[in-house]
């Protein structure tokens, strides 16, 4: 039997447990890839929210990051299906879910929603940068010119009428995108919240918690990327924009903490069958992951820091440092939240009489390394995409003219 176990371990990861768990539960079905799947869709929804706050709600202070937010959303979004495909036993059959979607399955709709949303993002980016594409197709002297020419789709016309038309499309897509991006992420929450087999997941608040944690993670990632890119580009960070994002983060974060708190305390207070094991879990392995990292350091601490920043009207360098720290803490909190939901749910046995203690391996399909690679891929995509679409300038034409004037 020893030899069998040793060999079997090579194909799957056996999770140790205490108490009584169903024998089949010792192989945890969903691992780190399913942790980063909602993390990435969350970043998408959050980045899109910031972009919409400018494009639809007309909040002017978000202008500096509004264009970049869309590109970031697309780059995160294209990796989302990759995480899921990498996790499937038969990725080559993935389209079965789209050819014959099973209408009662919460998961069957994913391909359609994700596909629709990727197309929407691509269209919105195209309309947003159309004038730049046309300008570059005519003026760019590098190897990129044929690509720009292709991207014009044969239309070089730029005048007030086309500008009006582009803007109308941009606005329409941005408006449709709000329910689409939030629906996409609320839906991810539903995939977990709708399962009655696990008390840890089975909650009506799950979609809302996912959604709000998504928004805070998206705002945070934009704060961090905007600051880093500005430092690299040696340009001044727009203080008003950072202030706006801190306010958005502060507000949404308070609501997120509230929702997570309500969900957790309701579960504890209802104290249904199996509460003993949830209590044991909460004060055991979950304590540092949930109470300390997700809630304490990751959410409550940044709320306090930002409250102080808002109260003292912090500005300048202190604002930048504070915003950066808070954003980094929130991103940490959200990844812990995803981990605590996805892995946490599976660590509490369906018997409600035992606990598993899953450890993510470093190598392999479901390992940390795969997760890190998948999480870094969007950054590479962003680097490439921003070579073609410069989101940091108002328009390619005015930028070129300003450069020429400076010379």
């Amino acid at each position, binding site marked *: 039997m020893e030899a069998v*176990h040793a060999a079997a371990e090579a194909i799957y990861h056996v999770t140790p447990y205490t108490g009584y768990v169903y024998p089949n539960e010792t192989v945890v079905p969903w691992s780190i890839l399913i942790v980063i799947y909602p993390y990435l869709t969350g970043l998408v929804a959050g980045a899109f929210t910031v972009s919409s706050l400018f494009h639809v709600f007309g909040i002017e202070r978000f202008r500096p990051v509004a264009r970049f937010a869309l590109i970031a959303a697309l780059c995160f979004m294209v990796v989302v299906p990759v995480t899921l495909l990498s996790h499937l036993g038969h990725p080559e*059959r993935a389209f079965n879910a789209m050819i014959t979607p099973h209408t009662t399955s919460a998961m069957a709709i994913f391909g359609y929603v994700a596909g629709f949303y990727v197309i929407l993002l691509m269209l919105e980016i195209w309309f947003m940068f159309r004038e730049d594409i046309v300008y570059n197709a005519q003026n760019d002297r590098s190897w990129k010119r044929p690509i720009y020419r292709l991207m014009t789709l044969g239309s070089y016309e730029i005048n007030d009428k086309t500008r009006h038309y582009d803007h109308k499309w941009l606005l329409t897509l941005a408006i449709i995108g709000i329910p689409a991006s939030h629906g996409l992420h609320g839906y991810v929450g539903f995939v977990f919240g709708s399962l*009655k087999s696990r008390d840890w997941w089975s909650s009506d608040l799950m979609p809302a918690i996912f959604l709000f944690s998504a928004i805070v993670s998206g705002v945070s990632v934009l704060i961090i990327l905007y600051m880093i890119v500005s430092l690299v580009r040696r340009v001044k960070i727009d203080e008003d924009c950072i202030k706006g994002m801190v306010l958005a983060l502060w507000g949404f974060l308070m609501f997120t903490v509230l929702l997570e708190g309500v969900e957790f305390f309701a579960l504890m207070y209802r104290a249904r069958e199996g509460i003993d094991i949830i209590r044991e879990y909460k004060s055991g392995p979950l304590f540092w992951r949930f109470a300390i990292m997700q809630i304490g350091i990751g959410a409550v601490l940044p709320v306090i820091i930002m409250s102080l920043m808002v109260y003292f009207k912090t500005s300048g360098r202190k604002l930048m440092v504070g915003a950066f720290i808070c954003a980094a803490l929130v991103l940490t909190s959200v990844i812990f939240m995803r981990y605590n939901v996805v892995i946490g749910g599976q660590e509490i046995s369906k018997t409600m009489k035992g606990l598993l203690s899953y450890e993510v391996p470093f190598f392999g399909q479901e390992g940390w390394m795969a997760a890190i690679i998948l999480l870094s891929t969007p950054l590479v995509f962003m680097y490439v995409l921003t070579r073609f679409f410069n989101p940091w300038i108002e328009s390619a034409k005015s930028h070129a003219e300003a450069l020429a004037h400076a010379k």
Partner: protein
Amino acid sequence: MNKMSDTPDNTLPEGQDAGDTSGRRRFLAGAGAACASAALISVLGPAVAKDGPSGSFPTADFDWEKHNWGYGIDANKCIGCLRCVDACKNENGVAKDANHFRTWVERYVYLEGAKRPLIDSQSHPDNIAVSAPNASRFDDRYKNEKVEKAFFVPKMCNHCENPSCVQVCPTGATFKTKDGAVLVDKEYCIGCQYCVQACPYGARYFNEIERRADKCTWCYHRISKGMNPACVEICPVGARVFGDMNDKNSPISQFLKDNRVLSLKPEMGNRPTCYYIGIDKEVS
């Protein structure tokens, strides 16, 4: 790995191919034929769709619309010999390790004065240690204890009337047959494991060799030929009962008539068609 690959046949029993007769396959078969022969398009499509279980079904004289299978478990009779567990693994080519089971047996032991039972199954490392590859055993860890009450509970897929696994399957690869079994179409499953998560009973597992979800089929390849599932066949004490609930004289109909039966986790709303007698409040 050796043990896993030298099982007689790692492919599923032919009964699993009952998936061929599901609506989707019929539709695709119909559509394919219709494309190939445009002249017959209006005739062939519906004709194939109406063709019912015969046609591609492995057992020619089996009509799944005529049966309604049910399963009974009498925990009072179970002696925990675990022959059912081994028989199932042999019959169905299930990985011979401690982490993949289509059926398993739980041991509940109340020591004197204890409020809660101690629970383990044959997959506990101490039990594995005293087992041979094809002869699973429970160890005798309680032989020096004062045991007040002890009993065994065989567990398996409950072949629910409202199966959570079928509800969540994104492709329809897992489905409920017309005679009541819940099966997996191994050629169509994408291996997302949503069904493994959704099953409240822990009855499903991921088949690492075939990279898809796997579970008890009630030995569909046997029952569609008029035989009993392997676990029922081998049980030396008659703790496991199987039959057609449409047939008033079948063992399961007698079992349901003679006993007041329970099902596991009724609050889930799954309405299992595995019926228990002799279980305790601590069994879930």
